[in-house]
């Protein structure tokens, strides 16, 4: 039933249905939404182990090595595009949170420093999920993983701001729960020369411990509680994209099994950190923060 229609639909969506990702994974959802904006004239390099499962299903040129290779191969592709005089092609380099914040953090920093012409995307599901949920540099405070059985004791790295500090032309955070905002940011990134960085926290029902059906709902809560706020830094100027009043972090934390062990004090601590970050973002909204 409708098989032919669906084949046509997958061609248009540039992604094949039925990836090898878990049910409710944000990876294929991100690529579906992103490819709509990026279009056919795009090369995607790299992986993020889980999102790699999604990348295998995309219908545009993609080339991945493996986990510890982030931004680097894209640097080579970018040079090849220059050598061939192909400035019409959009080059996207993706990486997971572990790659981007831990093992290949230096590679992203170096590509940013060289201002390579590519859109670097961090697909952040907040732990090493493909190996069975181990803590990464982007695992949030208090989250259970198999290597932090009592909850992570340190905070998440602020990679978007770290990349912004490299004075790259464009940095943004985006969410699959807000597809229009995501599309606009990718569109903007496409139009800018140089290194663009987009950070997106995607849901992982398996590692975050929640019902896959709530994938988008939980991700939306992440934005609405300001745990994962939406902002962009263009030419050093900060712009907060969603300024709605914050919901209590408890709504977001309580929706996920990985935060089940958090004490009241710990939740208060998280709320305090989020409040500070929100105040900071709002205080600097529309200001030049990177000089």
């Amino acid at each position, binding site marked *: *039933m*409708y*098989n032919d*229609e*669906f084949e046509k*639909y*997958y061609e248009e*969506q540039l*992604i*094949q*249905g*039925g*990836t*090898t*990702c878990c*049910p*409710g*994974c*944000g*990876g*294929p*959802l991100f690529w*579906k939404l992103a490819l709509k904006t990026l279009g056919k004239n795009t090369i995607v390099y790299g992986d993020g182990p889980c999102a790699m499962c999604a990348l295998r299903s995309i219908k545009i040129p993609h080339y991945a090595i493996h986990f510890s290779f982030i931004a680097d191969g894209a640097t080579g592709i970018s040079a090849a595009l220059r050598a061939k005089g192909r400035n019409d092609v959009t080059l996207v380099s993706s990486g997971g949170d572990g790659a981007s914040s831990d093992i290949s953090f230096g590679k992203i920093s170096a590509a940013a420093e060289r201002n390579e012409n590519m859109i670097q995307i961090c697909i952040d599901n907040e732990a090493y999920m493909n190996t069975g949920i181990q803590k990464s540099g982007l695992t949030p405070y208090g989250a259970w993983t198999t290597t932090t059985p009592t909850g992570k004791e340190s905070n998440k790295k602020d990679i978007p701001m770290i990349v912004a500090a490299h004075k790259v032309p464009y940095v943004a955070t985006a969410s*699959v729960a807000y*597809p229009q905002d995501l599309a606009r940011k990718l569109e903007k990134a496409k139009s800018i020369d140089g290194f663009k960085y987009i950070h997106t926290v995607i849901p992982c*029902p398996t590692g975050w411990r929640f*019902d*896959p*059906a*709530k*994938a*988008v*709902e939980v991700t939306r809560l992440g934005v609405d509680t300001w745990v994962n706020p939406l902002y962009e830094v263009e030419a050093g100027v900060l712009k907060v994209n969603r300024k709605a009043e914050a919901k209590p972090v408890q709504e977001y934390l309580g929706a996920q099994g990985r935060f089940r062990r958090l004490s009241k004090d710990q939740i208060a601590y998280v709320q305090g950190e989020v409040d500070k970050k929100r105040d900071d973002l709002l205080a600097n909204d529309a200001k030049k923060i990177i000089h």
Partner: protein
Amino acid sequence: MSQIVRSFAPKVDQEKCIGCDMCQLYCPESTVMLTEEKKVVFDYRFCKGCGVCANECPVGAIVMVKEGTQ
């Protein structure tokens, strides 16, 4: 393509459906589609039964039913 295994499958009540497109927009696996006649259809070959479409449906037109009864 790996074999899809699912316990539940989405089923739409076309009467309730308002054709808002949310199910198609948020389906992680791109297996929900709105036909030209604004009819919601599922690609059961690839749907994993995650239930995001049902959860995101603003009018509760999609329900998850036991696999085989959709």
